[in-house]
């Protein structure tokens, strides 16, 4: 059952003000991923207070700390924009759904995936370091993300 939009709007805006574009419909998702090129981040947003409440600030910290970043950043909102989220997940279907989670893609292929279990109970600064490593890995820099 989706939450009322007023409740989730701040969670959406916490990402969009970082330059993350929200994909709210199947058409939005397909327009981005049907013919992918370059590097992309897909943040599967969530209401979950403990995990998503740390993941969103972690992305902000990572973007502030790193010169490396994906060409494009997108989000879908699990539990809210159900069809768009399911469609986005179909583009990285080898990975089981969890939210929050973050996929890092290059030319449509998943290069790195941060599952919810990697987020739970961790400080945003710790997670930010993982995101920076994933950015660097996407850009072919020596610090490998898949450790």
């Amino acid at each position: 059952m989706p939450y009322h939009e007023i409740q989730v709007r701040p969670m959406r805006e916490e990402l969009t003000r970082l330059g993350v574009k929200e994909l709210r419909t199947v058409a939005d998702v397909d327009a981005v991923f049907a013919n992918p090129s370059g590097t992309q981040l897909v943040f599967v947003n969530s209401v979950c207070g403990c995990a998503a409440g740390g993941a969103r600030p972690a992305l902000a910290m990572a973007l502030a700390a790193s010169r490396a970043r994906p060409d494009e950043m997108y989000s879908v909102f699990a539990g809210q924009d159900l069809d768009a989220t399911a469609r986005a997940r179909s583009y990285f279907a080898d990975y089981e759904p969890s939210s929050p989670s973050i996929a890092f893609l290059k030319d449509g292929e998943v290069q790195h995936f941060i599952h919810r279990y990697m987020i739970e109970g961790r400080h945003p600064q710790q997670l930010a370091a993982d995101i920076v490593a994933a950015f660097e890995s996407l850009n072919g820099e020596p610090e490998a993300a898949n450790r």
Partner: protein
Amino acid sequence: MHPGHHELHGITVVVETVGPVTYVARFDTADDRGVHLLNVATHERGAPGPTLDEFLARTRKFGVKAAQKYLLLPQEQVRSIRRLSEISQPS
């Protein structure tokens, strides 16, 4: 992280039982009835398919393939509970 909840509430855990079954699931709570787990994936030692190490390695890489929404596991069945994030990645 969730005041008033069990310290593992919301955490993805590996629950080894005294029998052949190991669960990976999101820990909800524990009470006198047992451990309450959500979105539960199951591995049974000796059954056809991957070994436990292979199952855990796949779960770490691709996520929890949940087959059950909820499981109440009696406390006497529990041998150990560890966070999935603390399970070593195979080299």
